[in-house]
């Protein structure tokens, strides 16, 4: 680290200056300090990878060699054999002082490359500046060869050939949505109930699979008939799962061997020697057996995450660590006192650091939309048990405390608030926010449980297990509730709905007739005509994305498939079907709504200034928009300042917002996922509002092509919420957070000086009470002053550790682009 705090600066002084990162350095153990600093940052700086970060070419090469060799096997078996070869042969490493191991690359500074995901990502990787391992020329040749092998044969290529070509072209235009419709790049829920609550180690699962195969063989060796025909494929799938589980156990034992060799031949420090031997024992025990210590519990989980990420580029990290690791924590720390709380805190901190380390090569749209991080690792804390009692425990506190010590931007936490949460826990939550981490986000647990039952019919007990499937969407961790494959490609660039309604479906940025021709807006005589056009464009846009995703899900066992993920999912172990098959999945889909709020503000501005007050005509408006407001500055200001804006408790625009949401909610019931369940909307942005800034044209809310879009799912436009925080909450409270959609992201900036000390905590707690009373499901806070943020822009070296909440995630401020930084500073600082 370049800058150092004055050695004699007291903690108190640092607190006053809100330089929390120095406090963290002072307070954390030597081990955590070392481990935190030893991690390579994999998140992109704006859209570029940091200097020194290289793509791992070893794993794709190992994988491709075997994939080619086993070309006559069915998809799942072929993948399992290829993966087993990778696990057997990939170089592994143990970081100094580490007590947890496992990485998805062969060296700590490498990015994993999902070589069989999409040709266009492979091509992008070839053209990417800075990421080729030295010597560059040799690497380029190697990548060119790998690309040639996979061209046309990746999961996305296969799907693109089956999709309707019009849908394919429009989706891949980059204008209306993002994500890739394959589990090669999905968000994979984990069946934690199966692994942790039911305590299944991999050897136990192997036994279960053998029992399933035995039963299946009763059929295949019995009387012939049509019902036994699908069973042959299932047996092959079970074989694939077994290969993966055995390979995973062997992979963990490679770490055990390495740790033992280090301990016995190289380590001189007796304490570290002991740690290495314990690590060896840990890796021998898990994941083969269910964990029997806290360290094993964390290591088991981490192995599962790494193995899953070696199998696919997972974009999210659904988890509930305080709940599933609690039994072993309680045993080791509280009941048997095998380790001290400080030792446990070290493990928890390291557990977060190991997740922070994880990174794969993502296409540029993903990097720009998730600046500073490599995926939305939003871990769930708090909440209730299956019987409705408070699930917060001492491990919840330990995670919140460890977060302030290690200060990583990823993972972050989403906290399931409910009325029974103890004050002691709320104080720890607040401390994290006060320290500027931007997390935990606060989620309204009772309301979201109701929402999960309302939209997807999860039974109460299962709904209560929910975790964040990505940034925001709740999903159970149960046999039929878990969602093994959510694809980000049902992510809608919603501002295009109003843009297309105004331009007859034509996209002036990508120069293509995208949406249906809903009529020349210059001729619209009433607001209802415009609204009808908007509704048609909305349905078209959502349908196009959902059709793509549904087909991707349906075809995934054939086009990609997940033998490892299947092996750790109860329903696949039982059925012999690839877990990505929709069979047995209750369905937990949602349409992520990026750039949503512009619709309400834009429609309201047209209604007021054109149709109600007739100050401008549709002709005037369309002329201004077609010129990107150039030459229409006074008019543009009228559309900003004289039209009501969302977030000010103004029924005129709030009513339009609710009307839009209700139209979508109605449509959400008409469209179905492959399991036959609904597709509710979930308005939120990651940094997609910046990624799309030069892709969404000028709008009637006064933005030009190039301006950042609003940052939240229902956050008011930055600086446009002029009536204070209660007006924001009241506007948001007009939305039915159960019936109108799946969840609604609200960003708020609070004043760090106002919220200092005990008084600050009490103010914040009262705010949360109001938030809950008004029935909102989400809120998250930035509590870093403008002064600090501008100073960080000026002197990034000195402010490397400043963290901000971007949208559904946090990032180090210096890692996000200037436009994104300014967008965060533009947000209104609310005095509460």
């Amino acid at each position, binding site marked *: 680290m370049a800058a150092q705090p004055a050695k004699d600066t007291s903690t108190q002084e640092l607190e006053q200056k809100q330089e929390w990162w120095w406090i963290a350095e002072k307070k954390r153990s030597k081990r955590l300090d070392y481990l935190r600093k030893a991690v390579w940052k994999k998140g992109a*700086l*704006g*859209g*570029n990878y940091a200097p020194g970060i290289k793509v791992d070419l070893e794993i794709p090469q190992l994988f491709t060699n075997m994939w080619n060799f086993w070309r006559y096997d069915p998809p799942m078996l072929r993948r399992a054999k290829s993966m087993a070869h990778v696990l057997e042969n990939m170089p592994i490493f143990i970081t100094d002082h580490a007590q947890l191991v496992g990485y998805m690359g062969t060296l700590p500074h490498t990015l994993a490359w999902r070589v069989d995901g999409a*040709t*266009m*990502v492979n*091509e*992008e990787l*070839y*053209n*990417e*500046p*800075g990421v080729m391992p030295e010597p560059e*020329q040799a690497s*380029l*040749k190697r990548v*060119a060869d790998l690309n*040639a092998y996979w*061209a*046309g044969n990746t999961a996305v*290529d296969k799907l*693109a050939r089956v999709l*309707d*070509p*019009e849908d*394919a*072209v429009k989706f*891949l*235009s*980059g*204008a209306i949505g*993002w994500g890739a419709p394959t589990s090669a790049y999905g968000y994979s829920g984990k069946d934690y109930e199966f692994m942790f609550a039911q305590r299944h180690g991999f050897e136990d699962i192997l036994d279960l699979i053998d029992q399933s195969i035995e039963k299946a063989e009763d059929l295949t060796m019995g009387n012939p008939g049509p019902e036994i025909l699908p069973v042959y494929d299932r047996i092959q799938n079970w074989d694939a799962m077994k290969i993966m589980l055995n390979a995973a156990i062997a992979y963990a034992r490679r770490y055990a061997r390495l740790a033992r060799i280090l301990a016995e031949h190289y380590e001189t420090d007796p304490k570290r020697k002991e740690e290495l031997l314990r690590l060896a024992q840990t890796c021998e025990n898990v994941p083969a057996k269910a964990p029997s210590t806290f360290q094993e519990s964390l290591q088991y989980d981490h192995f599962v995450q790494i193995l899953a990420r070696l199998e696919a580029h997972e974009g999210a990290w659904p988890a509930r660590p305080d709940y599933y690791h609690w039994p072993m924590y309680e045993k080791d720390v509280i009941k048997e006192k095998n380790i001290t709380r400080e030792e446990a805190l070290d493990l928890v901190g390291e557990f977060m650091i190991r997740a922070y380390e994880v990174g794969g090569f993502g*296409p*540029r*749209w993903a990097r*720009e939309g998730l600046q500073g991080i490599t995926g939305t690792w939003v871990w769930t804390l708090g909440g209730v048990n299956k019987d409705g009692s408070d699930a917060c425990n001492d491990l919840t506190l330990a995670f919140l405390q460890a977060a302030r010590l290690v200060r990583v931007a990823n993972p972050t936490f989403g906290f399931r608030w409910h009325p029974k949460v103890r004050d002691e826990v709320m104080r720890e939550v607040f401390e994290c926010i006060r320290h500027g981490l931007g997390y935990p986000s606060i989620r309204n647990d009772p309301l979201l449980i109701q929402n999960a039952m309302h939209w997807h019919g999860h039974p109460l007990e299962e709904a209560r297990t929910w975790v964040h499937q990505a940034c925001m969407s709740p999903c159970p961790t149960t046999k039929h509730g878990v969602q093994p494959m959510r694809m980000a490609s049902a992510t809608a660039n919603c501002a295009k709905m109003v843009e297309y309604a105004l331009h007859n479906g034509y996209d002036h*940025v*990508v*120069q*293509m*007739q995208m949406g249906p021709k809903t009529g020349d807006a210059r001729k619209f005589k009433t607001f209802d005509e415009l609204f009808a056009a908007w509704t048609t464009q909305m349905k078209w846009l959502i349908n196009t994305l959902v059709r793509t995703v549904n087909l991707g899900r349906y075809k995934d066992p054939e086009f990609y498939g997940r033998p490892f993920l299947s092996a750790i999912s109860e329903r696949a172990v039982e059925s012999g079907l690839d877990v990505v098959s929709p069979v047995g999945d209750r369905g937990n889909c949602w349409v992520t709504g990026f750039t949503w709020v512009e619709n309400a503000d834009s429609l309201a501005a047209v209604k007021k200034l054109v149709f109600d007050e007739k100050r401008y005509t549709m002709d005037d408006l369309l002329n201004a928009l077609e010129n990107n407001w150039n030459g229409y500055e006074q008019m543009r200001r009228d559309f900003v300042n004289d039209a009501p804006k969302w977030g000010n408790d103004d029924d005129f625009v709030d009513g339009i917002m609710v009307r839009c949401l209700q139209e979508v909610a109605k449509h959400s019931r008409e469209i179905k996922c492959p399991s036959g369940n609904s597709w509710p909307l979930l308005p939120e942005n990651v*940094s997609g509002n*910046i*990624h*799309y*800034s*030069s*892709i969404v044209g000028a709008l009637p809310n006064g933005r030009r092509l*190039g301006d950042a879009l609003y940052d939240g799912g229902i956050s008011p436009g930055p600086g446009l919420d002029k009536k204070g925080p209660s007006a924001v909450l009241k506007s948001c409270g007009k939305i039915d957070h159960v019936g109108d959609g799946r969840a609604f992201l609200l960003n708020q900036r609070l004043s760090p000086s106002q919220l200092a000390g005990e008084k600050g905590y009490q103010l914040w707690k009262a705010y949360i009470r109001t938030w809950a009373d008004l029935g909102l499901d989400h809120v998250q806070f930035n509590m870093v002053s403008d002064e600090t943020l501008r100073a960080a822009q000026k002197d990034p070296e000195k402010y490397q550790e400043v963290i901000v909440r971007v949208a559904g995630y946090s990032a180090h401020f210096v890692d996000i*682009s*200037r*436009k*994104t930084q300014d967008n965060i500073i533009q947000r209104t600082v609310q005095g509460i």
Partner: protein
Amino acid sequence: MGRRDQWKQVQSGIYDPSLKARTVEERETVPDIACGLCKNFAENAYASDGRGLCRVLKIGSDISASPVVYVLEGEVGYPAYFTTNAASCTHFERMDFIDTDGSEVADPNYRRVQRQMENKFK
């Protein structure tokens, strides 16, 4: 041509070129007159491998044919790559300023972030 066939044609125009095996040398060459250097080229923001659409020519055009085929009416632009040789395109207009900085975000009009473009302007 029916709807599906028309869109099939667009799809293969946009996606087939990336399936062609190319040597490192072919991949590294950005001709001095290339679509990626032209004001009319709009880079795709979904696949940042340097594919894009022409804002003037429409689907059905072919600037590598002889004689060159120009189609100026249509609902989809002509698919091109930043490396597409545009020596015969009479609509080529050289950009005065190309942004190769990948630390900001997508900007189809101004930004070209491929390593080869960065090297060209170093």
